[in-house]
């Protein structure tokens, strides 16, 4: 990947991926700032990582099992108290299927 490909960003495309609506001013500001950040990140492209394994966690633990037994659930009021919109103990969401 060449340098110009890794230090610019299509802000409309990426903000849509991130599901964040930006104002025109924010887009303008972020385009410049994130361009600078990506330019700074160029340092990474020069590192020799041939044959190096990636680190996802400093001290990974594998196969952490838990007993498959029922536990005390939260009561319905606890679960629903933060919902922005609810009816009959159910969260109301916008329509997601076509007519």
């Amino acid at each position: 990947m060449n340098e110009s490909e890794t230090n610019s960003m299509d802000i409309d495309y990426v903000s849509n991926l991130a599901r964040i609506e930006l104002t025109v001013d924010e887009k303008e500001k972020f385009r410049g700032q994130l361009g600078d950040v990506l330019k700074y990140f160029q340092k990474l492209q020069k590192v020799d990582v041939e044959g190096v394994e990636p680190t996802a966690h400093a001290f990974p633990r594998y196969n952490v099992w838990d007993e498959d037994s029922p536990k005390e659930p939260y009561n319905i009021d606890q679960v629903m108290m933060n919902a922005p919109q609810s009816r009959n103990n159910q969260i109301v969401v916008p329509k997601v299927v076509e007519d």
Partner: protein
Amino acid sequence: MSSIEIVDNTVSQLSLLLSEKKLSSFEITQAFIDQTNRVDDRVHAFLHLDEKNFLKQAEESDERRKNGKTKGKLDGIPIALKDVISVEGQPLTAASKILENYISPYDATVTRKLKDAGVIIGGRLNLDEFAMGSSTENSAFGPTHNPWNLDCVPGGSSGGSSAAVAAREVPISLGSDTGGSIRQPASLCGVVGMKPTYGMVSRFGLAAFASSLDQIGPFGKTVKDVSLLLEIISGHDPLDSTSFPREVPAYGSLIEDKLEPSVIGLPKEFFGEGMDQEVRDSVDKVIDFYREQGHKIIEVSLPTTELSIPVYYMIATAEASSNLARYDGIRYTSRSKYSENAIDVYAKSRGEGFGEEVKRRCILGAYGLSSGYYDAFYLRAQKTRTLIREDFNRVFDEVDTILTPTSPTPAFKFGEKSDDPISMYLSDIYTISTNLAGLPAISVPCGFTKNRLPIGMQLIGKAFHESELLSIAHAYDREHNFGCESPQLV
């Protein structure tokens, strides 16, 4: 003892006064509330303080003591938590508008442990929104001010946690550290702050920022107080699958043991350009102290240091963009009133609810994870993270502890770095690599600038060697006690 005198005490002193029945938990808690009411309109460390509930817990502690049922050394000692740690029935905003009305339905594991130890939990402390920042300027509810100079930032992201201890509003607090968010504000506010080894303290109930880097940790005026608090909050938790099954040593008493001579490493890459001269001079005095105490000081090299910032900001933003996907306006966050369909609900609720830095980081993270860029950014950063860990492993074959400044400069002024992300990111240059390597590290106050701004030094230890790290930090701290000096706020 007047309330102004009470708040100057360390936890160890307060605990003694409680056990000798010279003070009650109610009197202590009331004194800290009084102090908060005196100074917090200027400091703004607190986002929320439920005084009635705070005092009720204190009364319960006094009742336990009267009946000989005290739960431990810290029973009756007040604490406040960074507003990302869940306390059942209390607000948790993460300093974000999107969680403005959120109430925690359950306790974080650290909260439960504090309650089990009888610690009095009152109040929510300010931070950079979702712990993203180094100055607390990114709080949706206004910044916290540095108690040593109100025109300066307290550091961040746990700026409320460090400022509250410095301003004597609480004797101890909890914060979280993803890239320096406990140690840098501790340094800038002149208090002790520690990030434990990754996996030592459960993250269950902590609002996640970057899950492979986040750790909860303690603040206090002294290393001793921090050790006592760490002892309570550490330990394996089945609710956090990254938590490590290890015994928790009695840090609070172990640190008093006689210290054997050890080897301390000074990474040459940390002592280069960009370090303030007064910071350098203070840290030089710390080096002299340890040398005089019989420790061997050697220069070491961590050549990957300059890569730690890009690696960190790639990994942390990628994890954040994924973690923060849960704030979508559907189940428990504020929902935009202007949305027409489901995608719109997500995009508009997040656009309205997130502040600038959170948006910037989620977008950067989404970019690094996106098709076509994943290998060049995220995967490459993870591979470079391996090289950073290997650097530390190599150095720790030779030394027991690494000594560095905590921050290249003392506290800076508001607005100085807020429009320049890279310069803000660089203020974490000395703290970030330890999170990438998962190591424990502590910031200890080591002096003041001529303008009376605090300076901190950082000690980094081997993984899961908290006892040794705290012991060597305590050896310095008990002789100097810079964290016990009070700013002139009253």
